[in-house]
């Protein structure tokens, strides 16, 4: 009995020490995580550069007469041209903007919703907890991509790629709610929560000022891992024909068109480069997320999906 309590306290102090400051130093010493961070930084810079350099309508318009159609990669066209004679290189760069923008909105929205639901469920308990978490359970009983496919249909078609963002936000929210609820329950057991309550803190103040900051670690890891997933899933929905409108320079759309119209007639570059950039970006987020998880707590094992 006494040995158990002892190991308990030892474990906790280790976790707390890891949580305090060595987190960053440990993350930086993790070469893979740093590689991930570098990849992400490059993608973000490219995204912003492309957004403010290229004119979207120009990228979407066909370029017959200006460029050759389905030209192989060359010095003039580093990634070749597609079936509409559009230069693929600037389109792929602009695709980074789409990925970063739509990925960020998806992750931010599902984090926000999930954190809210998770904390409320943990704090109020009983019926509130049950109603929220059982609803989350039901949403988690669907394979994620399939639920997203079905949910895309409830949004009007004019919304384009935002349909995918809406559907995936609803799909990812339960994961955040679960992680946050678990973390918040642990925090609620700590004495300082009682102390804060005794000092007369109101519910919202306690939740936002005291419980939320203590759940930030698992939230950050979950968000990072989900970032890569969001980008790959948005592209998957585009690939399956739900999301981007034809001609829009998203990686998923370029991939889909390139596979359908170019790949087997020899124009492999049409789909190859968008896919490569997509895979690299997702890899960046997975490397960073993985490293963060290791740095925070080697025992905290969550899966990507």
């Amino acid at each position, binding site marked *: 009995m006494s040995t158990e309590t002892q190991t308990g306290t030892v474990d906790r102090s280790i976790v707390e020490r890891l949580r305090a400051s060595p987190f960053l130093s440990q993350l930086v010493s993790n070469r*893979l995580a740093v590689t991930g961070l570098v990849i992400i930084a490059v993608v973000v810079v490219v995204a912003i550069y492309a957004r403010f350099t290229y004119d979207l309508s120009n990228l979407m318009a066909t370029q017959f007469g200006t460029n050759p159609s389905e030209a192989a990669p060359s010095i003039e066209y580093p990634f070749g041209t597609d079936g509409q004679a559009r230069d693929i290189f600037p389109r792929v760069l602009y695709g980074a903007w789409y990925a970063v923008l739509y990925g960020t909105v998806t992750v931010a929205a599902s984090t926000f919703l999930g954190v809210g639901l998770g904390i409320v469920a943990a704090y109020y308990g009983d019926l509130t907890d049950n109603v929220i978490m*059982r*609803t989350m*359970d*039901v*949403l988690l*009983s*669907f*394979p*994620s*991509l*399939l*639920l997203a*496919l*079905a*949910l*895309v*249909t*409830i949004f*009007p078609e004019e919304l384009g790629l935002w349909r995918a963002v809406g559907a995936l936000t609803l799909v990812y929210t339960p994961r955040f709610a679960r992680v946050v609820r678990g973390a918040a329950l642990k925090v609620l057991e700590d004495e300082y929560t009682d102390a804060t309550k005794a000092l007369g803190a109101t519910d919202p103040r306690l939740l936002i000022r005291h419980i939320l900051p203590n759940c930030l670690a698992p939230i950050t890891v979950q968000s990072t891992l989900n970032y*890569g997933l969001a980008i*790959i899933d948005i*592209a*998957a929905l585009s*690939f*399956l*024909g*739900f999301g981007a409108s034809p001609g829009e320079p998203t990686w998923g759309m370029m*991939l*889909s068109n390139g*596979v359908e119209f170019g*790949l*087997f007639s020899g124009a*492999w570059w049409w*789909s*190859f480069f968008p*896919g*490569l950039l*997509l*895979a*690299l970006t*997702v*890899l960046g987020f*997975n*490397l960073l997320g*993985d490293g963060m998880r290791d740095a925070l707590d080697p*025992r905290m*094992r969550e*899966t*990507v*999906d």
Partner: protein
Amino acid sequence: MVSNRFVLKRLLLLFPVLFGVATVVFAILHLSPGDPAVVIAGDRASQEFVEQIRSDLGLDDPLWQQYVRFLGDVATFDFGQSYQVNRGTQVSQILVDRLPITIELALLGQFAGLLFGLPLGILSAVKQDTWTDHLTRVGALSGISVPIYWSGPLLILLFAQFLGILPTSGRIGSEYFIEPATGLILVDTLLAGNVPAFQSAVVHLLLPVVVLGIYQMALLSRMMRSSMVEVIRQDYIRTARAKGQGSKITVMKHGLRNAFIPVITVIGIQFGSLLGGAVLTETVFEINGIGTLLVDAISRSDYPVVQGTVLVFAVLYTLVNLAVDITYSVLDPRIEQ
């Protein structure tokens, strides 16, 4: 030993979940902006005709009546008739025909993932922080990051187009006609005693299974590694080593058995991503499972088919997780508490 009460409790918990799942599917379809009556009647139909169909389908009834009727239909596996994809055919019949195709693909993908993922994970854990470990981990992360709809087409290009050694799409050569008995092409060709057809099926399924398996392999090797790394540090492993047992035997006998338990749970959770991957794989390789059925049905607003397919996917996923939970409790009886 796993107690019957635990199994019974888990089985009873299935009902509220399935009820919730059905409710979500009902809600999704009623929130969709499209009108089923217009889809059936076609764009040029008269207003009266559309109204006629709407009242035939009961779409004029109050929502709660439609909901109750829907639950009743679902409970009796009656999903109605397809409007578009297979006009007039019962959705349940379409599902019976096409579900085995997806299941076969998913099972083979899972098997391939286990076959390569587990040994890689163990290797990575045993050789922790060596180059082998780093390479395996980066390989696994890459495997998770590469989209199926990119690697699939590229592999088709390489093996079918350039090298010409594998077919581009489908499950079997078009020259073979196999009467479906189980619906699993590998089993059916064997049952028919048709060896060339079996070979054709194997060759056709090779690339889809590889593409789907890479993702599973990557996930499983990661999981196996972290589970194994943790187990290797445990006291009983040190005790076994101290007793003079060789390190290989220790790893195999004590380590593996304990490390495998969390991996089984992950197989259950990841079954969802396996099904998602199967949908993409079917689309890339033009395999007529329920994945392509769903994509087809959504883009053509065939609501009964969408309903039936999504429900079947959710039920499948839920049942696999139930089976995993029960297996888990057999392996680790403490879980019941």
